[in-house]
């Protein structure tokens, strides 16, 4: 286990006040069981920030905690200067936070257009304007607006879910494993669309299992391990960092040596 000092928790982050600032989060699903054990994350305006880590590291839990879906027991989340810790998801949407869940993220019996309307039910007057914006990023959705979401492929549904989250004109978009269950080409498409959304001015936090792809597209990333920040830094640096690979594969040289030692002892 590595120990990180405060200064390198957000290594590579730009100067200035972050848009989203999560400090020392403890959160979990069951009473007494913390999945996050003191997680930190900052997102600066315009950034695309990735969260990666091995299975069970707490990546999705961190994202859900930011969006008020998992109770935060300790720590704080600040959005644009306002404390938003444990605020309800619908309030956060109104404040400009968009969230795309990993699964069950469309209404299958509704059409694409109706799905997008659901994304802006809190402010229906702006529908036409926002519909134009999202169909500019996702042209296929405009062309097929009358098709039922249930008839779409997994990749297309993911696009609908991302588009719906964009309807409320969020300043922060939280993406939970947008590549999960998609074919390699669809994954790449999802990653490129994510970059396009970011270029259109939306700051993004993306949780990903496909670490290599995630590190390619993001400005910075946090590597989580057992609910804590293990490493962080610019995506390119982490991609080539043997410590990160080691964390994923658990192939610690010391481990192998210790086992060899055990064998000779036993």
């Amino acid at each position, binding site marked *: 286990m590595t120990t990180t000092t405060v200064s390198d928790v957000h290594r590579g982050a730009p100067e200035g006040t972050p848009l989203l600032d999560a400090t020392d989060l403890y959160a979990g699903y069951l009473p007494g069981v913390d999945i996050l054990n003191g997680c930190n994350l900052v997102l600066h305006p315009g950034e695309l920030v990735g969260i990666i880590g091995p299975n069970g590291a707490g990546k999705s839990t961190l994202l859900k905690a930011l969006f008020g879906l998992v109770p935060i027991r300790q720590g704080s989340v600040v959005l644009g200067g306002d404390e938003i810790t444990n605020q309800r998801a619908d309030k956060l949407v109104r404040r400009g936070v968009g969230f795309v869940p990993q699964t069950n993220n469309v209404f299958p019996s509704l059409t694409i257009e109706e799905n997008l309307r659901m994304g802006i039910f809190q402010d229906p007057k702006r529908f036409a304007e926002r519909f134009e914006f999202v169909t500019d990023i996702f042209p296929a959705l405009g062309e097929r607006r009358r098709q039922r979401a249930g008839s779409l492929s997994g990749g297309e549904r993911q696009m609908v879910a991302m588009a719906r989250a964009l309807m409320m004109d969020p300043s922060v978009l939280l993406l939970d494993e947008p590549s999960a269950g998609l074919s390699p*080409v669809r994954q790449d*498409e999802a990653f490129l669309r994510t970059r396009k959304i970011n270029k259109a001015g939306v700051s993004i936090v993306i949780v990903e299992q496909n670490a290599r792809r*995630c590190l390619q597209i993001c400005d910075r990333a946090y590597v989580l391990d057992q609910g804590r920040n293990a490493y962080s830094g610019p995506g390119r640096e982490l991609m080539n960092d043997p410590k990160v*690979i080691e964390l994923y594969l658990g192939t610690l040289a010391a*481990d192998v040596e210790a086992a060899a030692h055990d064998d000779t002892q036993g």
Partner: protein
Amino acid sequence: MSADTPPTPAVPDRSPTPREVVARALADVPRTPGAPKPDPIIVADGVRRTFGGINAVDVEHLEVQRGAITALIGPNGAGKTTLFNLLTGFDRADAGTWTFEGRSVQGKPAARMAGLGMVRTFQLTKALSRMRVIDNMRLGATGQRGENLFAALLPWLWRAQEDAISARADELLTRFKLDGKADDFAGSLSGGQRKLLEMARALMTHPTMVMLDEPMAGVNPALTQSLLGHIQGLRDDGMTVLFVEHDMHMVRHISDWVVVMAEGRVVAEGPPETIMQDQAVVDAYLGAHHDTDLGDDALLEEDVVEQYEAEAEAEEATK
């Protein structure tokens, strides 16, 4: 081990441990996906299972060595549990053939597989929580004569068998250190104790092969060591073990052979000491090396993303 120790220290004064015997048997097996084994208990060919157009499992060829502990690893969604379900008869394959102990067994239901000597445990334990631990154990025994309606009325037909079953159950509970809990409800056990109960119950059928689905998931670290010992004990008693696991430390610690799956396929095989250095394994966990770098700004041009989409749509249309 110090640097100047000879690579193969001569140990003449003891017989080899089961682990060493297995290691020797597997020493010459090529480190390639689908490698043939000297004494396979399972041989699978062309096993495929699709869910909504995606190949959850698409295994060309796989052999599992008899008497060895084989670990099945891979990132989330690699198809490990699906393959497990197919082999144990809990799911039906769309294509493929496989044999267990030389018998063709594809499409055989789970109960039949258990009868043939292959039993499994589950990631989320399936202990019957409102029955006592000892009754959970007794239920695990197969071929009970008292199950026949008429025989049930004639106790002398089944009493001896039932006594034998009870004795076996007591013996296994003692072995797994659950004897103190025999009269507790299974629902009152901790996660780790339930795993032990499941394993003990599986042994009631005298299996030749035990399939463990994430035996370490949700187990208190204090119980980990004893659970690892029990799994190794299965091999030392001559059983074959195939297990799915995420915890690399455990894989490294107890397995004799590792099979790595990614996107439904077997992408690498080898002994645990070297498997992690395989490029295919690194790719499987970190995401494959693709030719394109998605960080390239040229990819954000107007048409490029649409091309990806068109390609994806064409792909989906053929499925």
